[in-house]
C-alpha cells in the first residue's frame, strides 16, 4: 500500500471517530431514564442569591447541555409556558434578564434546571410537577443559550417559531458570572 493512500485511510478513520463522538444532534424521544429527577435544590423559602456553594455537576447535564434538540424544544416551551411573560425574550421585564452574564442562582445547566423546578423568591413559580423533568432540562438548555453559553454548532440558525429576531448563532457570548451572588 502506498503511503498517500495510507494517510487518507488514517484521515478517514479519524473523521469517522470524530463523527461518532459528535452527540450534539442526539435525540432521546423518551426521556431516559424515565423518572429522572432534576437535582433538588433549596426552596425559595430558604435560598439567598449565592448562599449555597455549587454542588458537583449533575451527570445528566451532559445529555442536555449543547444538545440541538434540547435547545430547540426548550425554545418552544419558553414561548408555550409563557416564560416570555416575565423574562421577555431574554431581555427581562418583571423577571430578571436571561441574556446577560449575571446568574443569581448559578448559570450551570443543572443549577438553572433546579431554579426552574423549585421556583425562586419574588415571583418565579415552581415548575416541578407541572412540566416533566425532561422538559425542565430542555428549558434550562435553552435559557443558557440566551446568553450565548452553548457552543455555536448546537444553537439554531433559525427560530422554531415565527420570529424576526437575530438567529441564535449570532448571540454574543456572555461570560458566566455568579459574582452578584456573593452573600450580602
Amino acid at each position, binding site marked *: 500500500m502506498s503511503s498517500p493512500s495510507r494517510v487518507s485511510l488514517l484521515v478517514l478513520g479519524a473523521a469517522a471517530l470524530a463523527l461518532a463522538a459528535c452527540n450534539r444532534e442526539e435525540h432521546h424521544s*423518551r*426521556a431516559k431514564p*424515565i*423518572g429522572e429527577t432534576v437535582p433538588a435544590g433549596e426552596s425559595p423559602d430558604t435560598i439567598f442569591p449565592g448562599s449555597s456553594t455549587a454542588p458537583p455537576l449533575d451527570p445528566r447535564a451532559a445529555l442536555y447541555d449543547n444538545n440541538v434538540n434540547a435547545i430547540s424544544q426548550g425554545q418552544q416551551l419558553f414561548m408555550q409556558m409563557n416564560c416570555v411573560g416575565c423574562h421577555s425574550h431574554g431581555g427581562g421585564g418583571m423577571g430578571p434578564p436571561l441574556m446577560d452574564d449575571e446568574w443569581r442562582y448559578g448559570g450551570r445547566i443543572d443549577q438553572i434546571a433546579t431554579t426552574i423546578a423549585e421556583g425562586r423568591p419574588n415571583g418565579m413559580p415552581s415548575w416541578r*410537577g*407541572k*412540566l416533566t423533568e*425532561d*422538559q425542565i432540562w430542555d428549558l434550562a438548555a435553552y435559557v443558557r443559550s440566551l446568553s450565548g453559553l452553548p457552543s455555536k454548532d448546537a444553537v439554531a440558525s433559525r427560530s422554531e417559531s*415565527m420570529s424576526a429576531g437575530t438567529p441564535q448563532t449570532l448571540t454574543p457570548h456572555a461570560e458566566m458570572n455568579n459574582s452578584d451572588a456573593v452573600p450580602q
Partner: protein
Amino acid sequence: MKLSARPLAAVLPLLLAACQYQHYQSDFGKGAVEDTQFLTLFTIFIVVCAVMYLLVIGFLFAAILRRGRIEANVVESGRHHESHPLMQSTLIGWAALIGVGLAALAVASFVTDRSMAKAATNEKLSITLTGNQWWWDIVYNSADASKTLRTANELHLPLGVPTRIILKSNDVIHSFWVPSLAGKQDLIPGRENDITIVPKRTGIYRGQCAEYCGTQHAHMSLVVVVDSYPDFIKWWGHQLQPAPAPASPLALAGFKYVTSGPCSSCHNIGGTQASGQVAPDLTHLASRKSIAAGTLPMSEGNLYGWVEDPQSLKPGVKMPTIGLPPDRLHAVVAYLETLR
C-alpha cells in the same frame, strides 16, 4: 391449488373492506360540491387530452407506415404549396381542433373556478383550522362568544351548508386535504388561507396533512364527519358543555391529577382548572373517534397505551412520556373516559 387459493383468501377481506370504505379517503368520493366540480373538470381534461393524444399517436403511426412511399414536401424544399389538397385541409382542420380543444379546457376551468369562488361568498359557517406539529386545532367561530367552540382533530360539518374554513399554522407549513370533500390548501405560518366546502353526502371522511411537516407528518390526519343539520346542531350543543364532574372515586383521583399535574400545563378541559392552550382540547376527548390526530382509534386500551408512553406510539410527538405509575394511570384513563 391450495397454495394458489391462500393469497386470494388474504386479499379478499382487504378488497371487501376497500368497498366498504371506498369514499373514506378518495378523490372520487363526491362528498362535497367542490370535490364533484373538481372531478368533472378533471374528467373533461382527461377526455380532451386523451383524444388529442390518440390522434397524434395515430398520425405518427400513419407517417411511419407511409415513409418513403411519398416524397415529403418539407418546408425547406419551398414546394409546400404543391401538397395534396386533402393534406392541406387536414392540416387546417388539425390546427382548428387544437384551438377548440384548448378553448374547451379554458372555458371548463374558468367555469369551475367561478362557481367555486361563488360558494365562498355564500358562507354560512366559519371555522378556524390551525395546523400544529402534528395535530389540528379547530375553532367554530361565532359572533356569540358563548357559542364559540374549540376542539381538535375531528371536524364536524353540516350537510349542505357552505362552510368557510380559515387555515392557519403555528409552526411550519401544513396542507389541508380531505380528498373526498375538497383540497388541497396550504396552512402557512403568519398567513391566513381559506377554503369553502359545501358537503353533500353524510359520512365519515379522512383528511391528511399533505405538506411534509416533520417526523410525524404521516400521523397528522383529520377525521371529518359530515352530519345532517339537526345532528350537527346537537353535536355543537353537546360539545359546548363543560366536562362532566367525575362520579367514581377512581375517576375523581384521575381528575385531580390531570387538572393539577403536567397534563394541565398544555391541555385544556372546559369547566376545570386545566387550561393549557398548546395541545389538543380534551373537553370531549372520549366522544372523538381517534387519539393523537388519527394515530390510533379511540378505545380504552389505546388510551392506556397513549397516556403511558406516547413516544413509543408517535415518536417525536410533543407530548412527553411521563412514566405514570400503574395506579395513577388507571385513574387518569378512568377520568379521560368520562370526557364524553
